[in-house]
């Protein structure tokens, strides 16, 4: 277990398809987080940017891009890329700097202007890039992988497409209450069933869209928080950024094949399970302590997978947990009360940060209509392309 860091401020730019540059969203989110923290930008000792790779040249140096836009003031600067886990790695870098005494207060920012339609690799012929190869050789988009997982769950655990649709119904109902969400309309199971199949058995409303958006956090040492009159702030107690262990036997983005288990027995736990376990161990809490969870519902079926990987229920029991209402608002362990990616869509460098923003507001009791009463412990979970794991546990 490591020491806590304080979350002094959280901010977002609302998500949608706004058609502007990612810097604008990031700066808006950063200013909102600084205002929320009551911290002047010139007091910030370090800025960590989560990179977008589709925004052109400035995306690769997101930390400096945001620092320039906010006004150069000499802060330490870091830029992080870890695909969907970029935001969590940015939080991790910020936390490490605070705990090591390199900085007292750190601004973490992620933002993106997403392209329309499927994500795809950068241009050019690049046969040494697994991400390029899966598109070129197989036409395998992200939703095709989600479709494979969904079909596998149906075959192994007996999940149904109606179960998957109920995840969308649940998350859309929460998203309708969230002013930062892109989609703010309730969805019915009939509407999910009537939407077009994208990757069998998943339909358009089972799969998250691509979006523009931004999210930011102001993190500080506990000592700095006390000095600023915040003796009892939301605290980050764990950040898990583990990688998989060989042999990785679940086919995953962007790979064409799994590792072979012919020479080494597979680990007892899957990669996603290990992401959560490391977070729980670091925080000294377990699934029974959680008040809420924010997980990557890239597809509705994938949210069910996370229930099991987070230990909210045993393997194969996720659909049952959903049907019981345990993961809905008012249930034993509400999942994605923010509305999740179902309501936000993907703004890759921002979304893991946005998950921590939601925990922060929930743990403060500031989440308005979507507040989980008495929330004390929250977890986020996601996973980035190429084996980036990420989970954050925050407490009050």
């Amino acid at each position, binding site marked *: 277990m490591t020491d806590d860091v304080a979350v002094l401020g959280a901010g977002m730019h609302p998500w949608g398809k706004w058609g502007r540059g990612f810097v604008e969203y990031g700066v808006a989110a950063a200013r909102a987080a600084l205002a929320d923290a009551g911290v002047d930008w010139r007091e910030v000792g370090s800025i960590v940017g989560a990179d977008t790779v589709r925004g052109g040249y400035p995306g690769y140096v997101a930390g400096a891009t945001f620092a320039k836009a906010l006004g150069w003031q000499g802060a330490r600067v870091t830029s992080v890329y870890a695909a969907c886990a970029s935001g969590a790695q940015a939080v991790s870098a910020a936390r490490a700097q605070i705990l090591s005494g390199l900085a007292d207060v750190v601004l973490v920012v992620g933002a993106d202007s997403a392209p329309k*339609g*499927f994500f*795809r*690799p950068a*241009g050019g*012929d690049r*046969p040494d890039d697994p991400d*390029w*190869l*899966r*598109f*070129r*050789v*197989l*036409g*395998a*988009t992200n*939703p*095709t992988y989600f*479709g*494979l*997982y*969904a*079909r*596998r769950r149906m*075959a*192994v655990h007996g999940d149904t497409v109606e179960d998957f649709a109920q995840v969308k119904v649940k998350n859309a109902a929460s998203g309708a209450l969230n002013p930062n969400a892109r989609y703010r309309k309730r969805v019915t199971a009939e509407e999910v069933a009537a939407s*077009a*199949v*994208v*990757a*069998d*058995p*998943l339909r358009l409303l089972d799969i998250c869209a691509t979006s523009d958006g931004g999210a930011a956090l102001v993190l500080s040492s506990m000592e700095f928080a006390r000095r600023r009159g915040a003796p009892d702030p939301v605290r980050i107690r764990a950040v898990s950024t583990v990688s998989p262990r*060989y*042999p990785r*036997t679940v*086919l995953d983005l962007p*790979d*064409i*094949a*799994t*590792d*072979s*288990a*012919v*020479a*080494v027995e597979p680990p007892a736990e899957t990669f996603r399970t290990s992401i959560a376990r490391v977070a729980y161990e670091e925080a000294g809490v377990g699934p029974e302590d959680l008040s809420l969870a924010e997980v990557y519902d890239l597809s509705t079926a994938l949210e069910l997978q996370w229930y099991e990987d987070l230990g909210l229920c045993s393997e194969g029991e996720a659909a049952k947990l959903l049907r019981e209402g345990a993961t809905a608002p008012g249930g034993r362990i509400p999942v994605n009360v923010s509305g999740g990616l179902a309501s936000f869509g993907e703004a890759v460098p921002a979304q893991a940060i946005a998950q921590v923003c939601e925990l922060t507001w929930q743990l403060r009791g500031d989440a308005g209509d979507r507040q989980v009463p008495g929330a004390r412990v929250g977890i986020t979970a996601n996973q980035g392309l190429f084996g980036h794991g990420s989970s954050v546990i925050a407490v009050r």
Partner: protein
Amino acid sequence: MVSGWFAGDGNDFRLLGTRCSACASVFFPREDAHCRNPGCPGGELAEVALSGRGRVWSYTDSRYRPPSPYVTDPELSWEPRALIAVELAAERIVVLGQSVPGVTVADLTVGMEVEVVPGVLNEDAGTTWTTWHWRPTGVTA
């Protein structure tokens, strides 16, 4: 584009991977630089033909035309292709591939036996790009 990933004709068509001489780990797509088993001292990586048959781990399809670098003719209407992840028992590996043309998700079940067959990824006036396809055993189309 993917030279050395498969070889052979007709019934002899096989996916090609590599096998580590020190720990026997198998790699597909082929790994020619270093064995990726973290506990392996590192051995020579020799080419190995993978099993020709396996069982369906899962399957899906693409109802929308995938973006580039996938190559399709935008003049033609899009025909969804099934994608099948296949478990090869001897190698204890799962390999993703397209189904043979004409086999759709309605023809597939998890656990079904499939075999690897030569296929065409794309053709233009001068070149034919070959690939591998999975075909349910017993289907000859």
